[in-house]
């Protein structure tokens, strides 16, 4: 089972929710940090025995002398990574999504060769709480722009035997789509501010169109007056949990503690949230 924790707006508490949610799972659990531009769940999970591997993609290497300039590769590249630059075809590596279209359509053997390019790190470890939590994170190299590609790499380590909790990037575009695609449930974390509601609407619209069951966690629920609860009521979105704004949470969370350790009563509430999600998914798949 795959549960994504997303938001729309940045800074609502996705990581705070996904880390505590993973810590109350009694089955085999795997936390995957797909917020690959700035992953920080490791600050809270403190994984041990971390193993690093470089993430790679295949990119085209063009033999300009052998190229017959049919330009089929340029036409095939939906990302604009190949450009007619006069005498030669120019390759823009950061636009390349490694879709293989260019070397597939090239009619001349050996003119476009796929070669490996590194673009980030994938780290694996285990967080030793009362039971081990498998941990994987992706981290793009600075200036890299192929966020969905890295997210796909991280999700490639999902084991269907585990309950996978996926910490999503903010936004409501391609990175979010890639993260929640093929998940069983999405938890949208928001706050009752104008910004929180605005971005919740956008993220919810995407998740709704994808047909994935969704629930909302209202973090810092005692700040702001935006009608988040009314929005949830109008759209039949269950509110899974409300966490009030408390200084002690802000202070201790900032020093790397899990919500369920800061406020022990939250442990049972997170367990209830997890059970609600599990029941919803079971009903949806029955």
């Amino acid at each position, binding site marked *: 089972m795959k549960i994504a924790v997303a938001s729309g707006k940045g800074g609502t508490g996705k990581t705070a929710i996904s880390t505590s949610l993973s810590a109350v799972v009694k089955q085999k659990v795997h936390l995957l940090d797909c917020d690959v531009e700035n992953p920080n769940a490791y600050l809270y999970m403190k994984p041990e025995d971390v193993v690093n591997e470089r993430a790679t993609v295949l990119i085209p290497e063009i033999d300009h002398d052998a190229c017959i300039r049919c330009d089929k590769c340029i036409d095939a590249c939906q990302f*604009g990574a*190949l450009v007619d*630059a*006069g*005498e030669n075809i120019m*390759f823009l590596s950061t636009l390349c999504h490694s879709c293989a279209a260019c070397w597939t359509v090239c009619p001349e053997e050996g003119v476009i060769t796929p070669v490996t390019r590194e673009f980030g790190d994938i780290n694996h470890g285990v967080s030793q709480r009362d039971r081990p939590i498998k941990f994987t994170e992706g981290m793009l190299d600075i200036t890299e722009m192929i966020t969905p590609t890295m997210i796909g790499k991280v999700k490639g380590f999902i084991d269907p035997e585990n309950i996978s909790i996926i910490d999503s990037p903010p936004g409501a575009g391609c990175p979010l789509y890639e993260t929640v695609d093929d998940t069983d449930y999405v938890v949208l974390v928001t706050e009752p501010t104008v910004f929180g509601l605005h971005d919740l609407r956008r993220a919810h619209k995407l998740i709704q169109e994808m047909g994935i069951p969704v629930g909302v966690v209202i973090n810092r629920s005692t700040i702001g007056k935006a009608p988040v609860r009314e929005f949830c009521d109008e759209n039949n979105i269950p509110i899974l949990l409300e966490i009030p704004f408390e200084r002690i949470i802000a202070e201790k969370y900032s020093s790397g503690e899990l919500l369920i350790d800061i406020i022990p009563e939250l442990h049972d509430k997170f367990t209830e949230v997890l059970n609600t999600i599990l029941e919803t998914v079971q009903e949806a798949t029955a």
Partner: protein
Amino acid sequence: MNIMIILAPMSEKTTTAKLSARFARADYFAFIDTETKEIEFVENPHKDSQHGAASKVLSWATKKGVTVMISDQLGHTAVQVVDNNPNLTAYLSNDLTLDKIADAIANKELPVYPEGEVRSHGKHGGSGSGRGSGRGRN
């Protein structure tokens, strides 16, 4: 002077209009034929492209014979392509209207777009690693 085709981004199909501040996502492009003085307006086919609008526009324009372009703002990708295409020269418009552009270029009155300088209204940055020959401009 040699015959050339000039590419100019436009937000309206009017010869007395100034150029669009946007390049790759301009509504239209004007193609100016310096021999016939004809100006053809073409809808930008890549205006709504999700990815690589600048590089797609430049490939499209190059195939149409463009060797000179005018823009006051170029993003990172366009700058890379222009800097690495020895057959393409970019100029700043000096706030001229479209109908004045061809003569201004012929009379060498327009400054060349500063090499390597990203002037973008957008928020997207990032870097590429183009493999063009980088032989500068004419």
